[in-house]
Protein backbone atom coordinates (compact mmCIF):
# COMPACT_ATOMS: atom_id res chain seq x y z
CA UNK A 1 0.00 0.00 0.00
CA UNK A 2 1.20 3.53 -0.85
CA UNK A 3 0.46 5.31 2.46
CA UNK A 4 1.53 8.77 1.27
CA UNK A 5 -0.75 8.52 -1.80
CA UNK A 6 -3.68 7.42 0.37
CA UNK A 7 -3.00 10.26 2.80
CA UNK A 8 -2.92 12.80 -0.06
CA UNK A 9 -6.22 11.51 -1.50
CA UNK A 10 -7.86 11.57 1.96
CA UNK A 11 -6.57 15.15 2.43
CA UNK A 12 -8.07 16.19 -0.92
CA UNK A 13 -11.38 14.51 -0.05
CA UNK A 14 -11.28 16.29 3.34
CA UNK A 15 -10.75 19.66 1.63
CA UNK A 16 -13.67 18.85 -0.67
CA UNK A 17 -15.90 18.05 2.33
CA UNK A 18 -14.89 21.34 4.00
CA UNK A 19 -15.78 23.36 0.87
CA UNK A 20 -19.09 21.53 0.43
CA UNK A 21 -19.85 21.81 4.15
CA UNK A 22 -19.43 25.58 3.97
CA UNK A 23 -21.60 25.82 0.85
CA UNK A 24 -24.18 23.50 2.39
CA UNK A 25 -24.54 25.85 5.36
CA UNK A 26 -25.17 28.77 3.00
CA UNK A 27 -27.66 26.67 1.01
CA UNK A 28 -29.45 25.50 4.17
CA UNK A 29 -29.86 29.13 5.30
CA UNK A 30 -31.30 30.10 1.90
CA UNK A 31 -33.60 27.07 2.08
CA UNK A 32 -34.80 28.05 5.57
CA UNK A 33 -35.61 31.55 4.26
CA UNK A 34 -37.60 29.99 1.42
CA UNK A 35 -35.26 31.35 -1.27
CA UNK A 36 -33.91 27.97 -2.31
CA UNK A 37 -36.08 25.05 -3.42
CA UNK A 38 -35.62 21.46 -2.15
CA UNK A 39 -34.12 20.68 -5.55
CA UNK A 40 -31.13 22.92 -4.78
CA UNK A 41 -30.29 21.03 -1.58
CA UNK A 42 -30.86 17.69 -3.32
CA UNK A 43 -28.54 18.52 -6.22
CA UNK A 44 -25.87 19.67 -3.75
CA UNK A 45 -26.01 16.27 -2.01
CA UNK A 46 -25.78 14.41 -5.34
CA UNK A 47 -22.88 16.61 -6.47
CA UNK A 48 -20.98 15.84 -3.26
CA UNK A 49 -21.73 12.12 -3.59
CA UNK A 50 -20.48 12.10 -7.19
CA UNK A 51 -17.23 13.83 -6.26
CA UNK A 52 -16.69 11.42 -3.35
CA UNK A 53 -17.21 8.42 -5.67
CA UNK A 54 -14.44 9.75 -7.95
CA UNK A 55 -12.12 10.16 -4.95
CA UNK A 56 -13.08 6.68 -3.69
CA UNK A 57 -12.04 5.13 -7.03
CA UNK A 58 -8.83 7.15 -6.85
CA UNK A 59 -8.18 5.87 -3.31
CA UNK A 60 -8.17 2.30 -4.67
CA UNK A 61 -4.98 3.19 -6.57
CA UNK A 62 -3.10 3.61 -3.27
CA UNK A 63 -3.59 -0.12 -2.65
CA UNK A 64 -2.26 -1.07 -6.08
CA UNK A 65 1.21 0.47 -5.79
Amino acid at each position, binding site marked *: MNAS*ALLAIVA*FAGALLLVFGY*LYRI*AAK*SHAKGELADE*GIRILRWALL*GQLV*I*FLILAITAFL*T
Partner: protein
Amino acid sequence: MAVAQDAPSVQTASPGLPPYTKSLLKWSFAIGVIPPVALVAALALKSLYMLDYVHVLTGGAWTGFDLYTGLILSRILRSLEVPARVEVAKRLTPTTFFILPSLSAVAITAGIYLAQKLGEFNLNDPWILAAGAIVIILVAQGFGIFLPNGVRIFLELAKAKPDPALISKLTMRNVRLAASQAVFQILIILVMAHLAVY
Protein backbone atom coordinates in the same frame (compact mmCIF):
# COMPACT_ATOMS: atom_id res chain seq x y z
CA MET B 1 -23.01 42.84 -28.40
CA ALA B 2 -25.73 42.10 -30.91
CA VAL B 3 -25.32 38.35 -30.56
CA ALA B 4 -27.84 37.94 -27.73
CA GLN B 5 -30.40 40.19 -29.36
CA ASP B 6 -30.14 38.43 -32.71
CA ALA B 7 -30.29 34.87 -31.35
CA PRO B 8 -33.97 33.90 -31.02
CA SER B 9 -33.27 30.71 -29.05
CA VAL B 10 -31.61 32.58 -26.19
CA GLN B 11 -34.01 33.01 -23.27
CA THR B 12 -33.76 35.01 -20.10
CA ALA B 13 -33.11 33.08 -16.87
CA SER B 14 -36.15 31.14 -15.70
CA PRO B 15 -36.56 30.21 -12.03
CA GLY B 16 -35.32 26.84 -10.81
CA LEU B 17 -32.90 24.37 -12.32
CA PRO B 18 -33.60 23.70 -15.99
CA PRO B 19 -34.73 20.16 -16.93
CA TYR B 20 -31.50 19.38 -18.81
CA THR B 21 -29.29 20.01 -15.73
CA LYS B 22 -29.65 16.47 -14.40
CA SER B 23 -28.87 14.80 -17.72
CA LEU B 24 -25.79 17.03 -18.21
CA LEU B 25 -24.64 16.22 -14.66
CA LYS B 26 -25.11 12.49 -15.32
CA TRP B 27 -23.12 12.81 -18.54
CA SER B 28 -20.37 14.68 -16.71
CA PHE B 29 -20.25 11.97 -14.04
CA ALA B 30 -20.21 9.16 -16.63
CA ILE B 31 -17.19 10.76 -18.35
CA GLY B 32 -15.64 11.81 -15.04
CA VAL B 33 -15.34 8.25 -13.69
CA ILE B 34 -13.38 7.06 -16.75
CA PRO B 35 -9.98 8.62 -15.81
CA PRO B 36 -9.79 7.16 -12.25
CA VAL B 37 -10.99 3.77 -13.55
CA ALA B 38 -8.30 3.90 -16.27
CA LEU B 39 -5.69 4.71 -13.60
CA VAL B 40 -6.88 1.77 -11.49
CA ALA B 41 -6.60 -0.47 -14.59
CA ALA B 42 -3.07 0.79 -15.40
CA LEU B 43 -1.88 0.09 -11.86
CA ALA B 44 -3.69 -3.25 -11.58
CA LEU B 45 -2.09 -4.37 -14.87
CA LYS B 46 1.29 -3.00 -13.68
CA SER B 47 1.63 -1.32 -17.07
CA LEU B 48 4.08 1.59 -17.08
CA TYR B 49 3.05 2.34 -20.67
CA MET B 50 -0.63 2.64 -19.72
CA LEU B 51 0.20 4.69 -16.62
CA ASP B 52 2.20 7.11 -18.78
CA TYR B 53 -0.66 7.21 -21.29
CA VAL B 54 -3.27 8.00 -18.58
CA HIS B 55 -1.03 10.74 -17.14
CA VAL B 56 -0.31 12.39 -20.50
CA LEU B 57 -3.90 12.10 -21.76
CA THR B 58 -5.55 13.47 -18.61
CA GLY B 59 -2.94 16.21 -18.24
CA GLY B 60 -3.27 17.13 -21.91
CA ALA B 61 -7.07 17.17 -21.77
CA TRP B 62 -7.01 19.35 -18.64
CA THR B 63 -4.54 21.80 -20.23
CA GLY B 64 -6.48 21.79 -23.50
CA PHE B 65 -9.73 22.60 -21.74
CA ASP B 66 -8.16 25.49 -19.84
CA LEU B 67 -6.52 26.88 -22.99
CA TYR B 68 -9.80 26.61 -24.90
CA THR B 69 -11.74 28.25 -22.06
CA GLY B 70 -9.19 30.97 -21.37
CA LEU B 71 -8.37 31.90 -24.95
CA ILE B 72 -11.57 31.14 -26.91
CA LEU B 73 -14.64 30.72 -24.70
CA SER B 74 -13.75 33.79 -22.62
CA ARG B 75 -13.83 35.97 -25.76
CA ILE B 76 -17.16 34.49 -26.82
CA LEU B 77 -18.73 34.99 -23.37
CA ARG B 78 -17.51 38.58 -23.15
CA SER B 79 -19.31 39.34 -26.40
CA LEU B 80 -22.63 38.04 -25.01
CA GLU B 81 -25.24 39.89 -22.98
CA VAL B 82 -25.78 38.74 -19.37
CA PRO B 83 -28.93 36.60 -20.11
CA ALA B 84 -27.04 34.76 -22.86
CA ARG B 85 -24.05 34.20 -20.53
CA VAL B 86 -26.45 32.73 -17.97
CA GLU B 87 -27.78 30.33 -20.62
CA VAL B 88 -24.20 29.20 -21.36
CA ALA B 89 -23.46 28.86 -17.61
CA LYS B 90 -26.58 26.72 -17.12
CA ARG B 91 -25.11 24.18 -19.56
CA LEU B 92 -21.35 24.62 -19.06
CA THR B 93 -21.37 24.28 -15.26
CA PRO B 94 -23.10 20.86 -15.02
CA THR B 95 -21.20 19.48 -18.03
CA THR B 96 -17.78 20.26 -16.58
CA PHE B 97 -18.72 19.68 -12.93
CA PHE B 98 -17.26 16.15 -12.57
CA ILE B 99 -15.03 15.97 -15.65
CA LEU B 100 -12.56 18.72 -14.72
CA PRO B 101 -11.90 17.73 -11.08
CA SER B 102 -11.52 14.12 -12.25
CA LEU B 103 -9.03 15.03 -15.02
CA SER B 104 -6.96 17.19 -12.68
CA ALA B 105 -6.94 14.69 -9.80
CA VAL B 106 -6.00 11.78 -12.06
CA ALA B 107 -3.31 13.74 -13.97
CA ILE B 108 -1.64 14.70 -10.68
CA THR B 109 -1.98 11.27 -9.02
CA ALA B 110 -0.79 9.40 -12.12
CA GLY B 111 2.13 11.84 -12.40
CA ILE B 112 3.26 11.11 -8.84
CA TYR B 113 2.99 7.32 -9.36
CA LEU B 114 4.89 7.65 -12.64
CA ALA B 115 7.67 9.71 -11.04
CA GLN B 116 7.93 7.14 -8.22
CA LYS B 117 8.11 4.22 -10.65
CA LEU B 118 10.75 5.95 -12.79
CA GLY B 119 12.79 6.82 -9.70
CA GLU B 120 12.38 10.54 -10.40
CA PHE B 121 10.39 11.42 -7.25
CA ASN B 122 13.31 13.12 -5.52
CA LEU B 123 12.20 16.00 -3.30
CA ASN B 124 15.70 17.49 -3.45
CA ASP B 125 15.39 17.96 -7.20
CA PRO B 126 14.45 21.61 -7.97
CA TRP B 127 12.46 20.52 -11.04
CA ILE B 128 10.33 18.13 -8.95
CA LEU B 129 9.87 20.88 -6.35
CA ALA B 130 8.85 23.32 -9.12
CA ALA B 131 6.29 20.79 -10.39
CA GLY B 132 5.00 20.32 -6.84
CA ALA B 133 4.66 24.07 -6.27
CA ILE B 134 2.69 24.53 -9.50
CA VAL B 135 0.44 21.56 -8.64
CA ILE B 136 -0.31 23.10 -5.22
CA ILE B 137 -1.32 26.38 -6.89
CA LEU B 138 -3.53 24.55 -9.41
CA VAL B 139 -5.20 22.44 -6.72
CA ALA B 140 -5.75 25.45 -4.45
CA GLN B 141 -7.41 27.32 -7.32
CA GLY B 142 -9.54 24.27 -8.15
CA PHE B 143 -10.75 23.57 -4.61
CA GLY B 144 -10.81 27.17 -3.46
CA ILE B 145 -12.39 28.94 -6.42
CA PHE B 146 -13.46 26.71 -9.35
CA LEU B 147 -15.49 24.15 -7.43
CA PRO B 148 -17.18 26.55 -4.97
CA ASN B 149 -18.10 28.86 -7.86
CA GLY B 150 -19.62 25.94 -9.77
CA VAL B 151 -21.71 24.94 -6.75
CA ARG B 152 -22.75 28.56 -6.12
CA ILE B 153 -23.96 28.80 -9.73
CA PHE B 154 -26.10 25.66 -9.17
CA LEU B 155 -27.53 27.05 -5.94
CA GLU B 156 -28.32 30.39 -7.57
CA LEU B 157 -30.05 28.66 -10.49
CA ALA B 158 -32.13 26.58 -8.06
CA LYS B 159 -33.49 29.71 -6.35
CA ALA B 160 -37.00 30.96 -7.04
CA LYS B 161 -35.49 34.28 -8.19
CA PRO B 162 -31.97 33.62 -9.52
CA ASP B 163 -29.69 36.63 -9.83
CA PRO B 164 -28.46 36.61 -13.48
CA ALA B 165 -25.75 39.18 -12.70
CA LEU B 166 -24.28 36.95 -9.96
CA ILE B 167 -24.38 33.86 -12.21
CA SER B 168 -22.66 35.80 -14.99
CA LYS B 169 -20.04 37.15 -12.55
CA LEU B 170 -19.23 33.70 -11.14
CA THR B 171 -19.03 32.20 -14.64
CA MET B 172 -16.70 34.92 -15.89
CA ARG B 173 -14.55 34.48 -12.75
CA ASN B 174 -14.16 30.77 -13.56
CA VAL B 175 -13.37 31.54 -17.19
CA ARG B 176 -10.66 34.03 -16.20
CA LEU B 177 -9.31 31.52 -13.70
CA ALA B 178 -9.11 28.90 -16.46
CA ALA B 179 -6.82 31.31 -18.35
CA SER B 180 -4.51 31.59 -15.33
CA GLN B 181 -4.59 27.79 -14.91
CA ALA B 182 -3.58 27.47 -18.56
CA VAL B 183 -0.49 29.61 -17.87
CA PHE B 184 0.50 27.41 -14.91
CA GLN B 185 -0.10 24.28 -16.98
CA ILE B 186 2.12 25.56 -19.78
CA LEU B 187 4.78 26.06 -17.10
CA ILE B 188 4.31 22.58 -15.63
CA ILE B 189 4.57 21.04 -19.12
CA LEU B 190 7.89 22.88 -19.47
CA VAL B 191 9.01 21.23 -16.22
CA MET B 192 7.70 17.81 -17.41
CA ALA B 193 9.56 18.15 -20.73
CA HIS B 194 12.77 18.85 -18.80
CA LEU B 195 12.21 15.84 -16.51
CA ALA B 196 11.49 13.60 -19.50
CA VAL B 197 14.63 14.61 -21.44
CA TYR B 198 17.31 15.32 -18.79
